[in-house]
């Protein structure tokens, strides 16, 4: 294969990976602050995509403009889910329970989406989705570049919030140690709820880009959530930087494998990389080491 193929694959990996990084960051934030594994993250991305789809098809609102509506909507959805279901979970089995609860929630959402939108595959369209510009031999489709810029912007906004605002400080405190945070007067419950909302809100943006670059229906969520889970585990659960790096890294590796070897092994390489890394370093790239002898 030639250099154009390699460069194209690298470009694809980086651009698409940034979107996965965005979605994975939301997931790992939720885990880090609340010890909750949100299995519904995949279907929430699809929900965000369908919302953008509905806005565009029925109200003719542009995809990016529509984000002004979908992001707050998904934030609200996140708050509702947290208050109604997640917030009730307590005790030592909280994390295991959260897996089941969020899975049940995802079933509900999936069934509803199937009924409202049918199971036919759809894709988001816009005039710029098909157009591209060229740098040398490599073409950059506008939509992918826009997605990358959006992901980068949101991640930067997240960073600014976390490191420059007071609220962000309380999130980081809860991330580090919930008990200690509560002891210094941080309302951990409120922080948790808002974190969950933020974690879900990013799925609106991720969903729009995902929906514009993939054909999807409700059952696409299974593939999505399995990728997101592997990304956050690879990066280290609870580590934001880890999620970003792993998100971009995994997709990049997958695409390179696809072009160097064969697309058949692209997906598998995801999971094989994860397994290898975890054998060597069980806590992931940036996770907290487990203090144990076994």
């Amino acid at each position, binding site marked *: 294969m030639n250099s154009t193929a390699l460069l194209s694959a690298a470009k694809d990996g980086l651009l698409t990976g940034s979107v996965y990084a965005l979605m994975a960051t939301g997931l790992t934030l939720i885990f880090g602050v609340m010890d909750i594994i949100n299995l519904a993250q995949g279907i929430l991305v699809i929900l965000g995509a369908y919302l953008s789809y509905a806005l565009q098809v029925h109200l003719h609102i542009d995809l990016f403009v529509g984000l002004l509506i979908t992001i707050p909507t998904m934030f609200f959805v996140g708050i509702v889910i947290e208050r109604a279901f997640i917030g009730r979970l307590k005790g030592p089995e909280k994390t295991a329970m959260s897996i089941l609860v969020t*899975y049940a929630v995802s079933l509900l959402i999936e069934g509803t989406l199937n009924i409202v939108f049918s199971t036919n595959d759809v894709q988001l369209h816009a005039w710029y989705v098909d157009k591209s510009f060229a740098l040398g031999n490599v073409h950059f489709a506008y939509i992918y570049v826009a997605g990358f810029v959006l992901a980068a912007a949101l991640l930067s906004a997240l960073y600014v919030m976390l490191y420059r605002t007071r609220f962000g400080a309380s999130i980081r405190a809860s991330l580090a140690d919930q008990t200690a945070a509560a002891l210094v007067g941080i309302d951990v419950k409120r922080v948790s709820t808002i974190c969950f909302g933020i974690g879900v809100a990013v799925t609106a943006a991720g969903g729009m880009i995902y929906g514009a670059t993939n054909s999807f229906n409700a059952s696409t969520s299974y593939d999505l959530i399995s990728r997101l889970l592997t990304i956050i585990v690879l990066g280290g659960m609870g580590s934001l930087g880890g999620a970003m790096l792993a998100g971009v890294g995994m997709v990049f590796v997958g695409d390179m494998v696809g072009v160097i070897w064969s697309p058949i092994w692209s997906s598998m390489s995801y999971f094989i990389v994860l397994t290898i890394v975890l054998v060597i370093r069980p*806590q992931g790239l940036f996770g907290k080491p487990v203090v144990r002898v076994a």
Partner: protein
Amino acid sequence: MLQKKNLWWIAAVAALALFPVVEKNPTYMAIGFFTLVYMACATSWNMFSGYSGYISLGSAVFYGTGAYTMSLISIHANMAPGAAMFWIVPLAGLAAMVIALPFGWIALRVRRHTFVVITIAVFFIFQLGASNFSFTGGTSGLALPYITWGASYYFVPFYFVALGLVIVVTIISAALRRSRFGLQMLAIRDDEDRALGLGVKVTSVKIVGFTLSAFTVGMCGALYAMEQGQIYPQFVFTPVFDVSIALMTFLGGLGTLTGPLLGALILESSQQWLTISFSNGSLYLILFGALFLLVILFMPQGIVVYVRQRLSRKADLASASDADTGTSDVALSGGAR
């Protein structure tokens, strides 16, 4: 007292054994077969995940391995279709155990939360592998020798073999629970570091438990393959299987003996019936999801424990108001959480 309890188990087994005699409709026989398969798998899963607290979402790996073992052996050995294929079932269980050893070794070195995700990742490796390797038939799957038993009694042999599996795995699970090995697993669940400090060989206990739990699931996969006559990778390696048996166990009561049996009985038979009655797959998803939410939020420890607690509360009230002593055993509710 012990004998009376066993009597009820015997009555339950008898009822299940008589079911195919009473019920001739093959559709309901099929439901019965699948229910028994899930009862066996849930009990087997509970044997590791329930007792040790390490929730695994990768047992479909064993189910699929069992299914493919049955298919590959029966095809390559040119077996005549029929009852002789049942002999492959225990072999399939062994194959699943062989897979469980390296799987467990890799997966059990990490914390519980990461363990769940590794089991999911290994599951996808197997699913993708089965879909893309040629010896597994790729996405066309494998077609087993075609069994020509008549329609009206086709499911009967499968039903009884499955019933046998349920009985065997329940006995093993019960024996495990009372054994020293079982206590070690329970200790791991309650506090792994302390167990380690007390001298429990934590890693080998976990790996052995994990491997044991693979045996029955592998056998069930083989039964499924034999019954269907045709397997496809994405349907024997399916995430729905993993989550179903976990949910059934949670519904019934994680870590209890009867919990997984009850959970599977209720969920599998109702799921099969619902899908036959309401063809619309999406409505079923909503109902299922809603049911789980209700159970998990209001009966988080499962039906068995919930019932037990209500009964013990009633018994306490009764014995408090009674002047009589009544039999006040210390209820052996340990193990339920």
